[in-house]
């Protein structure tokens, strides 16, 4: 973009000036700026103080409820904690982990409005801690041990028994 003043140089800097109570925004080059006695301000002036509101923000502030007259809201109550659908819509918070079931299809609608989707998606498997993994392994090994002993495969059983001892030792050291 060219400088607003000389129209020759490129202008990358924007200056704001308050002139007669009005804010002037000018794109000018450094030479013209110097001539006019303007300097750059480092303060974050002129950026919106808060980010623009989105459906997400508006749900949070309960604004999505304003259009629905109260008597049109379905009369549902969560039997687990006693929260009514009306109260949920006005506060924006569920009462317990059974509410979403109690409120049924309405929850999906709200999720669609906020997140744009109605289906949960999670491919990240919960990684088991080493201790939990060890416990699982132990279960498997113990049943293998039983099997080998039942089949009189004592050598194999002995191997498993050693493995179990190793894991147990490892768990105790933690």
């Amino acid at each position, binding site marked *: 973009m060219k400088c607003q003043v000389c129209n020759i140089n*490129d*202008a*990358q*800097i*924007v200056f704001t000036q308050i002139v007669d109570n009005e804010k002037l*925004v000018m794109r000018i*080059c*450094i030479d013209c*700026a110097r001539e006019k006695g303007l*300097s*750059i301000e*480092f*303060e*974050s002036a*002129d*950026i*919106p*103080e*808060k*980010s*623009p509101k*989105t459906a*997400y*923000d508006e*749900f*949070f502030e309960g604004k999505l409820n304003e259009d629905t007259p109260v008597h049109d809201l379905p009369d549902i109550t969560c039997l*687990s*904690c006693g*929260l009514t659908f009306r109260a949920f819509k006005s506060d*924006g*918070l*569920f*009462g*317990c*982990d059974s509410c*979403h*079931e109690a409120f049924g299809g309405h*929850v999906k609608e*709200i*999720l669609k409005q*906020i*997140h*744009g*989707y*109605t*289906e*949960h*998606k*999670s*491919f*990240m498997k*919960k*990684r*088991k*801690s080493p*201790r*939990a993994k060890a416990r699982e392994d132990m279960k498997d090994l113990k049943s293998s041990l039983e099997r080998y002993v039942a089949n009189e495969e004592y050598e194999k059983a002995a191997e498993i028994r050693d493995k179990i001892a190793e894991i147990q030792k490892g768990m105790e050291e*933690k």
Partner: protein
Amino acid sequence: MNPRILSFSIPDWLNSGGPDDGIVISSRARLARNLKGYVYAHRAGKKELGEIFDVIVDAAAESGLGRDTVFRTNELETSDRNILIERHLISTALASKEGARGVLVAGSESASVMINEEDHLRIQAFLPGFDPETVYDKVRDMESKIADEVQFSFSKEFGYLTACPTNMGTGLRISVLIHLPALVLTKEIQKVLRSTSQLGFAVRGYKGEGTDIIGNMFQMSNQKSFGRTELEIIENLKTVIGNIIDYEKKSIGLLMKEASSQILDKVWRSIGILKTARVMSSHELINLISAVRLGLYLGLIEKHDSLMLNDLMISTQPEHLQAKHGAVLDAAERDVLRADIVRERFVDLNV
């Protein structure tokens, strides 16, 4: 333990040295979880809150996270709660409520678990620089350890169940604290903020929800936690923030091409003020730090000083100043003490 003791140390996550930390100051990941079989915190009575609190602290201890440091906010003085808020360990929402609530702080403050805020658990981790993957791994690891000891509310249909529907699904909020002086100076920041909003990002001031944007610092986080996997959320953040970083770097290049003497002048004048002022408001300090940060990025000042800048932001806050002084101070006195501390810190910075 008294939170005041924390005020004398520097949290790990402010340590400089993370990737790209000229522009991204820190990365944060947070997972929201609730215990199965208990009502959500805002509806729980005193007794139930106490039970939830104990279950969580016990689970953390069992899982090896230790009881490290557990603060019950409802048992603390206001001044102590303020220290925790100033160190970003608890939110003001948590601090203001009665009943068994608090925070468990682990590993030199790089990780914490808020208990009984909006959800039973808010597990968070911080890292310096731009590293959303590692910080996610860190928080997921903590979550897994606790998950082994308790049962979280979860449904196949809706994923992790949270008090607010805005957090359902993954329960993940991942964010970066990013410094964009050049985009602000060239007024390109408006464009950036519009597109981040369209791309599903919330932008806040560096102090978090509901605060103003100052010091050219922005907290950017994903708005949506549902209907996408954790990996997708992270990849999206990496792409968008990566683009913003490039844009900022280009803008810095342009500014230096067109107005290098003005930029250098601004940086060095700021350092001059920091080295000599006798009175300094926090607002002024934040803006001066922004100029110095740019100077750091441009290689005008030695790298190791960015830790000092990061620490200054935390340790010159009102409650921290009062803790250092050992008594209550009014605003004017705080401004003087702040200037003293700042001068001290900048004494070694070579001009």
